[in-house]
């Protein structure tokens, strides 16, 4: 892949390779975090080509409210922490169901390939402890504080809602229309990565280093530095 003329996109096959590399590197460098898992796409009848098709999945993630610094913490279904620096939610006098002060939210994240934009897309949905889906304004409160501004002001990262490409449910996604632009920038100086295989293996690591910041998930430096220097 000639990086200087690269348009910032990748093919479905390259996405599968990148996903595999991302899954492995994440497991090695981020073992404390829940893993990303590859899920094969449900086979659709009457579809002519049965290419390897699927997505990366990380589900049932408990996003704790962000502290005053940036970034939320991610953990599996754990006991909620008792002290949080965020303000308490206003008590609704009409329906006082639980006496607990803080509501724990759970999230599913999918990294799906967009055939139209030829880039990875992050799909996500959140739900409360009763399993009720969260609305976008509730989700935004769980995101790092600086994300809220970025989401509103940047044309490169904004959230839309649409039907998941494989499941008939509405999910939220970070819209992919700006992705190829900023992926091109990320790789601009990387003549040393122009050798195709390395660039593909790093594609999702680089992509997620940006996207993960919006949702408060962190790419450890080790994931990037694993490359041959």
């Amino acid at each position, binding site marked *: 892949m000639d990086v200087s003329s690269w348009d910032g996109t990748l093919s479905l096959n390259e996405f599968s390779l990148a996903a595999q590399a991302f899954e492995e590197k994440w497991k090695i460098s981020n073992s404390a975090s829940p893993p990303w898992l590859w899920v094969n796409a449900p086979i659709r009848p009457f579809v002519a080509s049965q290419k390897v098709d699927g997505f990366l999945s990380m589900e049932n993630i408990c996003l704790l409210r962000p502290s005053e610094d940036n*970034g939320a913490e991610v953990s599996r279904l754990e006991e909620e922490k008792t002290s949080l620096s965020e303000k308490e939610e206003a008590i609704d006098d009409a329906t006082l169901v639980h006496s607990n002060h803080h509501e724990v939210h759970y999230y599913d994240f999918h990294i799906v390939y967009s055939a139209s934009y030829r880039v990875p897309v992050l799909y996500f949905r959140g739900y409360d402890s009763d399993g009720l889906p969260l609305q976008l304004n509730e989700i935004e409160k769980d995101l790092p504080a600086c994300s809220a501004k*970025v989401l509103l002001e940047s044309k490169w990262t904004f959230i839309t809602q649409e039907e998941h490409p494989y499941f008939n449910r509405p999910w939220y996604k970070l819209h992919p229309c700006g992705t190829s632009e900023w992926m091109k920038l990320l*790789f601009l100086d990387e003549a040393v990565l122009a050798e195709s295989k390395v660039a593909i293996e790093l594609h999702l690591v680089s992509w997620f280093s940006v996207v993960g910041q919006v949702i408060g998930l962190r790419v450890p*430096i080790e994931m990037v530095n694993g490359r041959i220097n």
Partner: protein
Amino acid sequence: MASVTESPSSVRKVIVQLKATADAPILKQNKFKIPGTDKFAKVIDFLRRQLHRETVFVYINSAFSPNPDELVIDLFNNFGVDGKLLVNYACSMAWG
């Protein structure tokens, strides 16, 4: 490869060099020193203030956008070149 001449435990300052990319304006002061124990968020905030923009796209070599919580010294140790941490920035254009 970064050349680390001091012991890791000493609090050292890191030289950060900023580089404008895409359509971003070039800053008059594009080089400064920052304590290694500071978080990368400080560099991002500096850029936001200098450029008068809320959203700046910040990334370094190795095709990586560092998390604001990373320590500058860790980034320098892993990605520093010629005794500096090179930080690229672009403006992700606002709506309207």
